[in-house]
């Protein structure tokens, strides 16, 4: 119930935050929204000696969009801000949807997108759409910034590529290619406050004829230790004219690629089944929406 005793820092500038992070190394944890971190500390699963609160660092916050270039989202941006952002809704719909499904209103007002990623829960809401949208992360340290695709950043359950002295500071979302549409979906027991049994995101682009699939990324959540990008679904669909049969085939392929486990939320078998259903539904939905875009 009680947190271990720790020293608390609340730097105001990025440089100070990075400096602290560099000095304190593995003894420190970054406090963003705290909705995961504090629970882990209460359960004594983490006992950091220092907490570096990055909520006061303006450089780590906000949503910036530049036409043709894409969006930059600060890692300490609140999930509720992403949920309500007009530009995210317009350009990166799957992320908008996922943000709206994360926890409760109170949790979304506290939680940050960087926190949701660094916590690296296989059942998390935002990694799937972010990977589907081709997001890259910016990792900062005193020695500078490095970038990598999000799918390389998340290594497994609770594991990331973050090294000592580094802070995840930004997400870079490329400008969606023309005719593209993204969708997010999940299945859980109830309709809110749910930890998903399966979640899924699709990012699909049609050619100018409005029928041929130009680009596709299908990402599965909660069926593997990290977001799982389907390799087979794009092979089946890209360059082809969309049809219900092909979507079904791609969905089955994605399902067979998934490697879920059984736990108290659902069995592996059910999860595989649901991957197929959700894939097909989201592909169909994204296709219909994309046709409207062209």
């Amino acid at each position: 119930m009680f947190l271990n005793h720790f020293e608390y820092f609340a730097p105001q500038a990025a440089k100070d935050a990075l400096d602290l992070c560099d000095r304190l190394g593995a003894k420190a944890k970054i406090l963003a929204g705290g909705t995961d971190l504090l629970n882990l500390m209460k359960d004594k699963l983490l006992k950091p000696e220092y907490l570096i609160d990055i909520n006061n660092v303006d450089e780590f916050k906000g949503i910036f969009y530049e036409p043709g270039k894409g969006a930059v989202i600060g890692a300490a941006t609140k999930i509720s801000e992403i949920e309500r952002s007009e530009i995210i809704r317009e350009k990166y719909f799957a992320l908008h949807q996922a943000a709206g499904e994360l926890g409760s209103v109170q949790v979304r007002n506290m939680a940050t997108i960087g926190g949701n990623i660094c916590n690296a829960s296989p059942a998390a809401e935002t990694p799937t759409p972010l990977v589907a949208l081709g997001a890259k992360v910016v990792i900062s340290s005193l020695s500078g910034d490095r970038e990598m695709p999000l799918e390389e950043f998340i290594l497994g359950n609770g594991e990331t590529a973050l090294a000592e002295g580094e802070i995840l500071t930004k997400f870079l979302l490329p400008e969606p290619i023309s005719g593209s549409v993204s969708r997010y979906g999940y299945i859980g027991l109830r309709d809110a406050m749910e930890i998903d049994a399966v979640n899924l995101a699709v990012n699909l682009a049609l050619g100018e004829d409005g029928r041929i699939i130009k680009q596709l990324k299908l990402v599965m959540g909660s069926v593997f230790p990290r977001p799982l990008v389907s390799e087979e679904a794009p092979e089946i669909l890209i360059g082809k004219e969309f049809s219900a049969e092909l979507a079904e085939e791609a969905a089955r392929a994605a399902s067979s690629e998934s490697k879920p486990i059984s736990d108290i939320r659902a069995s592996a078998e059910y999860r595989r089944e649901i991957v197929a259903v959700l894939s097909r539904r989201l592909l169909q939905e994204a296709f219909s929406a994309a046709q409207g875009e062209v």
Partner: protein
Amino acid sequence: MGVWDKEQYVREGVPPFQDERRFTQVGKSVPKIDSPAKVRGEAIYTDDIVLPGMAYGRIKRCTEHAHAKIKKIDYSKALAHPGVLAVLIGDEAPKKWGMLPQTANETVLAVDKVRFNGEGVAAVAAVDEETAEIACDLIDVEYEPLPVLLDPFESMQRAGEIQIHEDAPGNILHEGEQVFGDVDKAFKECKYILEREFKTNMPQQGFLEPQAALANYDPQNGQLRLWSSSQIAHYLHRQISDVLEMPMNKIRVTVPTVGGGFGGKAEACVNEFVACLLSRKIGRPVKVTFDRSEVFYTNKGRHPCHMKMKIGLDADGYIQAVDFDNTLDKGAYAGWGIVVLFYSASMIHLPYKVPNARFRGRCVYTNKPSMGSMRGLGGVQPRFAMECMLDELAEMMGISPFELKMKNAVESGYTAVNNMYVPHTEYKRSLQKAVEKSGYLEKHGKLPFGKGIGLAGGYYITGTAYTLYMSYKPHTSVLLRVDTEGGVTLHCSAVDIGQGSNTVMAQMAAEALGVHFEDVHIQSHDTEVGTFDLGTFASRLTYATGIAIRDAAEKINGKLKEIAAGLLGCRADHLAIKDRKIYSIYEAERKSMEWEKVVEIAVNTTGSLAAMGHFSPPRRRGFDLTSGKRAQGANIGHSPTFGFSCQIFEVDVDLETGKIKVTRVTESGDMGTMINPMAADGQVEGSIVYNLGACLYEDQFFDKDGIHLNPNFQDYKMPTIMDMPEMDINTLTDSYDPTAPFGAKETGEGAVQPTFPAIVNAIYDAIGIRFTEVPITPEKVLKALKEKKKGK
């Protein structure tokens, strides 16, 4: 104003002065008197109270085993830790407690062995919560693991090898049989016979406020005060007295605002004993508040039941016999066990006429948290079985389930074969109203595949006939005080756990005294300030306090009328009191006085007015009406009167994911007079969501070693606001039980009864699959759909 205005306020043909149903305070939807403070965040809950010098208690729990011998407890390091004031272990309070004194077998902290995962093994008092938590970690307990029994059948089978309680051979708390009429003969003459097996889950109450207790023992005068979030101030009082070996008159129990109970706080709880024992040990106030995992560990949720039921109908569809076998998973300790066992037995006798019935049942110990009394105790499981089977039997006969249920439904004045007596029922009208409002007959069997509608009925007791310890004293007493300073004050130790008993008592007292609801002050929740009340359970409070209030008010009214009669120059029995006026029922215009004036004269002449009122339930015995033979446990289930209800659920089943969406619920209930229609609707709506959750989402999981896997609200899934269906509540507004106070019956637990079977019957209507186990998760639905496809 309530629904009464048009339909009920004045009945045609009955002169108002003779109309006992012409209410001015009862039947109004006044806001609950405790709501403003709750909404503003000003209500004081037990955990909010801080006393000078208060210490914090915490319980060290066995989280690593579900069944183990305690080899050694070493608390020297904890005791030496700065800020630790005391450590308590099981041996220091070995006296066994339990809701039923006959089967009391729980100790405050484990003695010699732990019987479920999370059982308390030691407790500490410290200067703050954090130190208390550290001290718990410093206590070393050495265990020798024992085989873990999690399934009641396995538990019975392996009882020779491993026994959970030394005095319970076979690992059975109690086994019983009840036979009424000749069941075997009756089945031989039946045309339609159906036999099915059902299994229910292990939901728990899910109240928001975790248990909290604050005890203050005064070493100077030997008095103990206990503040606790309890539903049962009296039974708690008794058990504290028993375990601490102190006379009851040295103990005062006060219940601050309670954040929900649903039966989960209808048993004494370990934190209460621990707070009292530690306070006595250190001579300082001690508070022990649970965190959510402790609520799950100490649980006392609903007994999982393994049920076999057989129902026989004659050629015309009349029920001839019911044979019911029930194996209850008791968990580790006895608690309410025997009562739940025999309540489940009594449930087959209503709300349908069953001339021959047999029950065999057993309550079996397992290494799980103890089950207890959860909203609708003993009723929900057999109702699920019976209502689903009647749905299937109707299909066998080729008639509507509605028709079958109407045919067999009981009527007012019915006496069941076990001598259960129903003074009043409008069950048939509840069925009719729900069917009419939902369009059930037009929809049932006719909706497209994947959509369905299901009907189920139910009933519940309005209080019990007996106390849990053998005593025939009145179950509720109230003290009414009327004076010129405080106005009207009602004293009764009854506890309002959110259901609204304080409000309803104020309305009834105002009605009975002829004053206004706002005039009545309620002094409840306290065993010293309040008069005796048995507790908040068995949906008993409205009825029990109503009768006691009426009794006390009549005495006060008698005095006031005598005085007014002299002043007005008329006979006292010609006077009525209403709307703060005392007037002659024959000459209301000429002979009338302000009530307050008469009170003033009365007080000035003979002093403040006060009167006690009592309620004792009718003493009915359970026996076989056909043979006259007594049946074991058959006194359980009797009640002064019963509430009835019908629910109709409409569902959409996602055929690809198995997800069930409840789209609409139509309800109609018979609860007699609604003292407060708004509060009554709240009870019904709450009941529906309550068991919707237990039917579709909620369950507790244990691994093979008995370790609790979801003792938190993240993984124990209750419905959220997003899962709420549209609800159409049509409680009968003209039901009136002439034997009940103000015509009122229960609704707090009756309305949870039909929910499981109504959902399950709706799912059958949607996809043609009859589920016999809850919760019905999407995974189970999808699996069943696949199997059905394969079968074709």
